[in-house]
């Protein structure tokens, strides 16, 4: 059975030369696809986590008594929300990348920047999605009634305790649907890391079809289905989370 799958695709490529699913029968190409998929998954997970953390901290900072902090957050949001993520990525890698220190590589000769292209992709994409997450969480925070916060205050809770114990758990529940959309977008936007040669799935697929022109249609088809699968997993996870956070008598349905 297992042997028949490569056989099938090898035959398919012979019969229809425009549909060469080479990675399904050539182990070398298969390794490249797997490698790319792994990078995409890692990049997505790390960026999702960082962008959510940035969103939570940013939304908290937006309510800061310090006008300077509020201005910094507002400026950050404007910059990252109103410029194309691709340009942000190139800017981080090529412009800021020049100024980061380098370390000598293992061979003792080459100089390696301490932040690699993968590092810059993580930074850039996390801040990009994080800017939207700040706004998403802020909307959730604004939906928490002032009187609920006052109740926490009158019980002696500090601003931080009120935020972590009361405001955030409630805001999160309100924010989940929008957060869902933004994180789906983030996963799709990781493909832009190809611009700085991060070996993620799109990068590997393009490399394969550059080496084997006949694999182009096949690679694109596989890309579409892979992303449908990846986003599906994310949405499934988010819905599970939404259900886990369900509280009787407070918005939403189980």
């Amino acid at each position, binding site marked *: 059975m297992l042997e028949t799958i490569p056989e099938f695709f090898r035959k398919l490529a012979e019969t229809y030369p425009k549909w060469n699913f080479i990675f399904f029968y050539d182990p070398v190409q298969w390794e490249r696809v797997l490698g790319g998929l792994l990078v995409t998954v890692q990049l997505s997970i790390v960026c999702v986590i960082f962008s959510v953390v940035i969103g939570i901290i940013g939304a908290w900072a937006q309510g800061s008594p310090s006008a300077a902090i509020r201005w910094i957050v507002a400026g950050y949001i404007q910059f990252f929300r109103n410029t194309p993520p691709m340009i942000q990525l190139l800017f981080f890698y090529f412009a800021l990348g020049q100024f980061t220190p380098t370390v000598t590589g293992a061979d003792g000769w080459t100089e390696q920047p301490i932040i690699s292209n993968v590092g810059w992709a993580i930074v850039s994409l996390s801040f990009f999605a994080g800017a939207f997450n700040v706004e998403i969480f802020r909307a959730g925070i604004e939906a928490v009634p002032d*009187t609920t916060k006052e*109740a926490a205050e009158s*019980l002696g809770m500090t601003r931080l305790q009120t935020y972590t114990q009361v405001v955030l758990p409630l805001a999160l529940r309100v924010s989940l649907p929008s957060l869902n959309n933004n994180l789906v977008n983030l996963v799709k936007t990781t493909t832009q890391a190809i611009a700085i040669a991060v070996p993620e799935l799109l990068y590997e697929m393009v490399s394969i079809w550059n080496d084997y022109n006949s694999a182009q249609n096949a690679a694109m088809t596989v890309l579409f289905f892979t992303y449908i699968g990846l986003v599906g997993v994310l949405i499934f996870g988010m819905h599970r989370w939404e259900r886990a956070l369900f509280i009787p*008598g407070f918005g939403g349905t189980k």
Partner: protein
Amino acid sequence: MTNTQWDEGQPIVSIKNVRKSFGDLEVLKGVSFDVQKGEVICIIGPSGSGKSTLIRCINALADIQGGSIQVEGQEVHDDDLDKLELRKKVGMVFQQYNLFPHKTALQNIMMAPIKVLKQPKAEVEKRALALLKKVRMEGKENSYPGELSGGQQQRVAIARSLAMQPDVMLFDEVTAALDPETVKEVLVTIKDLAADGMTCILVTHEMGFAREVADHIYFTDNGVIVEHGPPTTFFDHAQDERTKAFLGQIL
């Protein structure tokens, strides 16, 4: 700052010539009164007369522009005020209950003692269960606020406040949002508290209740205390025209 001078013979809450404005609107125009330990006082008056504002100033949820408010000898409106110390002494119950919707009744009660007072969980839980019993809500510890009636939520809110073991309780129209049938169960809870010797400052529209539990009644109108006295004098021999007009409408 320190309250070493304060002893139980002195007023537990002392309000002197308090002024409070929202922008150009002066809401409290020099309000003064004292509350002794164990006393129950009721503040009544027409809507917008500044009752909620006054009560919120006592636990520093609102600031004041003039005068002084002392709780156990400590000035509340002092820049160096330790708000945590104040809020350990003063509990507050709101008209809209304001329970935390994502926590069960028991968790609502336990949260502040654990997070704020840093008391051991087991001890807090024991006290919380006893308090639920006291407000006649045993069996509902695992219900979320959304699953409770207004009156039940309000009783949990009272228990939540009591769990901080305050010396003074503030109640701001805590039955105003309730159905007539559930009003009674909440009033009974407050009556029990008063009978236990808790110092209570209540804003209320329940005149029968005020007459029954209050040691002293204050009538506010337009930012000043127009008239005050023990319930019998106040209700049966009101002097001021505004008080008479108000009581005439209500009773």
